[in-house]
């Protein structure tokens, strides 16, 4: 569907990257500038708004009392949902989440879950019966590429900002009391996404770069620098050597991002 003009531009992007340059003057290993605003939504138990270049994502956290899964009776529950709201892009349409939104929410979910970022044991109220359920809702407000990293950054920032209601147990019933306790956190994972065109790797793809790249790799790192989640996307492939290069590029980027974030 792309018009002639955009096809010419996409060719330029491709050519520049093959020569090791980018149309927005960034280096291949350079992230776009970002900003984080925590607590923008007072009615949510936690929230954060992240701007990454022109990409903008709002994450709101709701914490409610629910039932645990049968196989983890002593752990609270976290669910992640993503909405590509139609005002974020002319290509987003109203309706239930499609493939792209579901993949996005599941990548963010895995980064948080596998790093054990939330101390879910502390979310248990009555073992096997009542636990806190943490709803992470990702709301994409403007799409300009790399929704994965922006959403992951917003989700972790919102969790850091989340408070749970104080409660007491009376006859197996949970009574909500005045006051709050911060959500217990163990770790602050960082997700880094890179794109690949032919044999060139580049960090933090923008929207137009996403349209021409062969494939994508997203890697989540724990605070200790371990890999905790990964997802390859796109129709291209990585050779074993490219994968090695991608891993080390992502790892050094995650380290410098962590310094900037002060997590």
């Amino acid at each position, binding site marked *: 569907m792309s018009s002639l003009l955009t096809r010419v531009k996409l060719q330029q992007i491709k050519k520049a990257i093959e020569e090791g340059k980018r149309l927005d003057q960034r280096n291949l290993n350079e992230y776009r500038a970002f900003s984080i605003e925590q607590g923008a939504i007072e*009615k949510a138990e936690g*929230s954060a708004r992240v701007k990454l270049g*022109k990409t903008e994502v*709002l994450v709101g956290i709701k914490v409610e009392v629910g039932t645990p899964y049968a196989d983890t009776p002593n752990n609270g529950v976290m669910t992640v949902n993503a*909405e590509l*709201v139609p*005002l974020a892009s*002319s290509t987003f349409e*109203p309706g239930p989440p499609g493939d792209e939104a579901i993949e996005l929410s599941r990548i963010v979910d895995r980064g948080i879950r596998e790093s054990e970022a939330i101390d879910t044991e502390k979310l248990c109220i009555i073992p096997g019966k009542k636990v806190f359920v943490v709803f992470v*809702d990702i709301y994409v407000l403007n799409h300009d590429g790399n929704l994965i990293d922006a959403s992951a950054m917003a989700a972790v920032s919102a969790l850091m900002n989340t408070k749970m209601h104080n409660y007491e147990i009376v006859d197996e019933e949970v009574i909500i009391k005045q006051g709050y306790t911060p959500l217990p956190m163990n770790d602050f994972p960082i997700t880094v996404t890179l794109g690949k065109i032919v044999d060139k790797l580049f960090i933090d793809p923008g929207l137009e770069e996403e349209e021409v790249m062969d494939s994508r790799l997203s890697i989540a790192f724990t605070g200790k620098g371990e890999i905790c989640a990964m997802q390859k996307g796109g129709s291209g492939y990585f050779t074993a050597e490219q994968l090695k290069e991608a891993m080390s590029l992502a790892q050094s980027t995650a380290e410098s991002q962590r310094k900037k974030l002060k997590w």
Partner: protein
Amino acid sequence: MNEKPKKLINTKGLRLDGRKPNELRSVKIDVGILPNADGSAYIEHGKNKILAGAFGPREMHPKHLQQADRMVLRCRYHMAPFSVPERKSPAPSRRENELSKVIRDALLPAVFIENYPRTGVDVFIEVLQADGGTRCASITAASLALADAGIPMRDLVVACAAGKVDNKIALDLMDIEDKIGTADVPVAYMPNLNAITLLQMDGKLSLKEFENAVEIATGGCKQIYEIQKEALKKKYEIIEQEEEVE
């Protein structure tokens, strides 16, 4: 969770947030904040935080909905799951579907739809935080989004509610007043044409009280209208300044 207050208006005649019965909440509006939309607006009306984005005029999909003699305007009102105290399922509710329709009906009279045959315009409204009166604040923002998209209009549409709390007619109800109060009358209005484009009511009012409610609601609309116009002008002032710098 919290105890419900018994009185919404205290002995000094002030409401829970310190407002007088005929006083608006604070209203803040920014225009043109969504880079990917053709027109957009963000409104903070009290604790309501709402984004509106307009796309079009563009080719109408699906094609069988095209109209040979006019543009088709579509509106979608949607609440974020974290916008309310209890998480709201992201699937559209019956309430959201109804509001989408009445918001569209409130905006349509303002738009010169006959100028753009066979096209479609979509207005997407996302409520990021709700605190009573979201349909009104949505209309105020949505009409700015349409104007910002360059769609010719007869007037901006502005909306505000009035209602009855503690036996008194009050302007611009917040959530708790809407829930405990006895009546709510949202009104959308085109001040230049003196035309009411949305009118709903629930609760009980005498005819006289109703007339009074509509009068103070349109009064509230006129106040917001000034803020609306300023917000629209502000965007284009910024552009002018940028051009001067160049």
